[in-house]
């Protein structure tokens, strides 16, 4: 198992600045599933719909679900709403 630190942005800030999930492999899809389980664990399943529309980033790169992360930290970006 690998520990991945997930940095929270936007609506996910309600969970704190970051949290950690454990994953079997470091694909983004696996991290997404682990975050979904985390939301259940902290009684915030209401954010699961936001999670489905969110994207993960590593550094300044947006990641598609099939890729693997190279480090152990990602950012979780909900739908954007600037302006």
């Amino acid at each position, binding site marked *: 198992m690998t520990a991945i630190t997930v940095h929270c*942005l*936007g*609506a996910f*800030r*309600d969970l704190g600045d970051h949290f950690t999930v454990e994953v079997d492999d470091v694909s983004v899809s696996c991290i997404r599933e682990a975050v979904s389980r985390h939301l259940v664990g902290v009684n915030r399943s209401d954010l699961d719909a936001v999670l489905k*529309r*969110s*994207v993960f*980033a590593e*550094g*300044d790169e*947006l990641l*598609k*679900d*099939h890729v693997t992360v190279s480090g152990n930290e990602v*950012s979780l*970006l*909900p*739908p*954007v*709403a*600037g*302006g």
Partner: protein
Amino acid sequence: MDLFARNEGERYLCGLIDGPCQTTGLDDLVQDPAHGAIAQFFGVVRNHNEGLSATAVDYDVHPELALKALSELCLDVCADYPVKLVMIHSRGLVRVGEASVVIAASSAHRKDALGAVTDAIDQLKIRVPIWKKEIGLDDEQRWLDGHSLRKD
């Protein structure tokens, strides 16, 4: 801390600043003796949204990604229009009546400057990693929904 990016040819300047944006002096940044038109857009926090009253918006930003997205957006707009362009967005608290985003473009003729500003704000709203937390009269806070960056 304020963050700015500028391209080598100085066709554009973009940035993120803490707190509200200044709405004066923006035209000076895009002045060009060959340009006969300057268009500006100020996005200002209003006191209502979706039937609810608001007193302020707290903007959350991913600094690295937002500056990268703003730079790419400026490059795209400058590729589409022969303009000089400035785009600055706030992060943190911006109160009603204060500007959260300011954009200015200059061009030889007005259509390009007006088109560039319109495209810039339209694209900013769907491409740049910035999030709004609206603050109500009773200090109630809610995150506003937006556009997904997910491509798969």
